[in-house]
């Protein structure tokens, strides 16, 4: 039972949650600065292609770097319009996502065999951590994962500490609550927002890099498959806190993993029912987890 159902389920949960957590952590920082980055999906797909192309040129480490830069590139464009030119966040973000999906598709068609189907990209498979991976049950689940997962184990506490305990983190939160008040207190609001968007782009790019380099091993069009939007839901479910976001990413990862598992059970039910599970779960959790609304006051404006 353990071998056949529970362990594979938990492993799949962590694997599925990893790219989602990268994107959600980026989205969280952006939203705490008051910016809804709907261009996240665009950064993710850019990260997928950038990661694949860079990995072909220089191996997997260069691949992740390329993924981060590609994500940052699209986010910079978003920042330029939203922060510098004062464009509407929702419309600009949507445009960035459409641009990212279209542009990656077009670029991909120029050299599909290099990074696409049948390409042999350098992938980064699971790396068992010494000692930790031999802990019964959890060792295998938590510490026999690809490197990006371990990066997250470190990154989540760092972001949490940075946001709570540093001046820069305070500035970020202040800008999200009231850019005017923050500016009056000497915080360069525009620069903080731009940097926050840049960080979210890098995280989106790493989400894409993880998908390509740690999971699928090749690029295909639209492979981001809505993860940018799921990331936005994760931030809401995580109540705009780093640990909450990480937890919510796990909840989503678990819901998807459960969906994969349930489909293997051969139940005589329409599969669409299982596919809807993660989304139904979100609705239920959002509706039942009580507490006051804690979105940054200036979010989206």
């Amino acid at each position, binding site marked *: 039972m353990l071998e056949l159902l529970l362990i594979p389920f938990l492993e799949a949960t962590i694997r599925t949650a990893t790219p989602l957590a990268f994107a959600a952590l980026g989205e969280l920082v952006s939203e705490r600065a008051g910016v809804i980055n709907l261009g996240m999906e665009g950064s993710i797909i850019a990260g997928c292609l950038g990661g694949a192309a860079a990995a072909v040129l220089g191996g997997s480490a260069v691949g992740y770097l390329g993924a981060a830069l590609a994500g940052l590139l699209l986010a910079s464009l978003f920042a330029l319009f939203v922060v510098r030119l004062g464009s509407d966040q929702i419309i600009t973000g949507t445009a960035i996502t459409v641009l990212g999906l279209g542009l990656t598709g077009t670029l991909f068609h120029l050299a599909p065999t290099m990074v*696409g189907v049948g390409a042999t990209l350098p992938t980064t498979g699971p790396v068992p951590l010494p000692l930790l991976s031999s802990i019964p049950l959890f060792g295998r689940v938590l510490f026999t994962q690809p490197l990006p997962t371990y990066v997250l184990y470190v990154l989540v506490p760092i972001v949490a500490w940075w946001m709570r305990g540093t001046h820069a983190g305070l500035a970020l939160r202040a800008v999200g609550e009231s850019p005017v008040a923050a500016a009056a207190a000497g915080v360069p609001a525009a620069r903080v927002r731009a940097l926050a968007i840049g960080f979210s782009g890098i995280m989106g790019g790493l989400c894409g890099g993880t998908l390509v380099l740690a999971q699928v091993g090749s690029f295909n069009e639209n492979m981001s*498959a809505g993860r940018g939007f799921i990331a936005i839901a994760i931030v809401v479910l995580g109540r705009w806190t780093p640990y909450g976001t990480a937890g919510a990413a796990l909840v989503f990862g678990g819901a998807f993993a459960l969906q994969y598992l349930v489909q293997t059970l051969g139940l005589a039910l329409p599969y669409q029912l299982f596919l809807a599970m993660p989304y139904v779960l979100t609705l239920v959790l959002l509706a039942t987890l009580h507490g006051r609304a804690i979105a940054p006051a200036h979010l989206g404006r």
Partner: protein
Amino acid sequence: MVACGPRDADVQADQGFRVALLTPGPISDQSWNAAAYEGLMRIRDSLGATVRHVQTRTPAEFEENFRQYGADRFSLVIGHGFEFQDAAQRVGPEYPQTVYATTGGTGTGANIAAISFAFEEPSYLAGVAAASVSRSKVLAAIGGTELPPVRTSFDAFTAGAKSVDPSITVLTAFIGNWDDAGAGKEQALAMIARRADVIFQNADAAGQGIFQAVRETPGVWIVGSNADQNALAPQSTLGSVVIDIPHAFLLLAREVRDSSFTPRVVRFGTASDVVRWTPNPAAPALRRDVQSRIDSLRRAFADGRGPALAPAP
């Protein structure tokens, strides 16, 4: 506006043979859509046709593009999938000089044809082959979405497997789209965790993830579909259930060009060699008795004497 002038003049002067293709997904998938594009290129090269391709996602786009090519007086417009049927039925009567064909489906009309592949016949053979190499007696089939032709193919695969050993289980799952290769991989890993050791994939681009899962798991076989996918994972692919879509497109286009086209369901079965089971030459040979069983089943399908299977709609 100036640039449009000469082009319009060309269209007016030269009503040559022109063919358009609508695919539901990217033509870089090395599967369903790639094969269609290859067919379009073959129509261009062999019949000297002017060709256009467009990727369409939603039924509204299907209709809009059907309409546009009809208004442009294209000779033949192919909607590449079962899902294009309704759009063809709606738009076809408005542009009687254009022939509309859908790959899959059963809908016909005065200028509407459906190309139907007996994909279930080689799927059955794949099931026989898969059952004979399985140690765990658990097989899996993973599709993109549950289109009727995919369902029929999976049912035939299951029937083929059970004809070898009735105790075999075939687990079926759908990803919900044809793009999410990450989900494809996880679904495959979930199947493998449930001891499946042969996976029949029909998920186009999302199938890349299924191939990756199998590449990473020694001892698990994959069966490709639509195009010959044997080279994608030579060490792990048992074979591919191939539809020679380019050949089928060429046969249909030739009819349209020669004005010998009659609206009907154009059915390609094992006899036409348009659909076939293509074993991977790099995989170990099947047991002799299994191979001869597959050969005789293939002949039976070609003669119309094969096991009764629900035909692909």
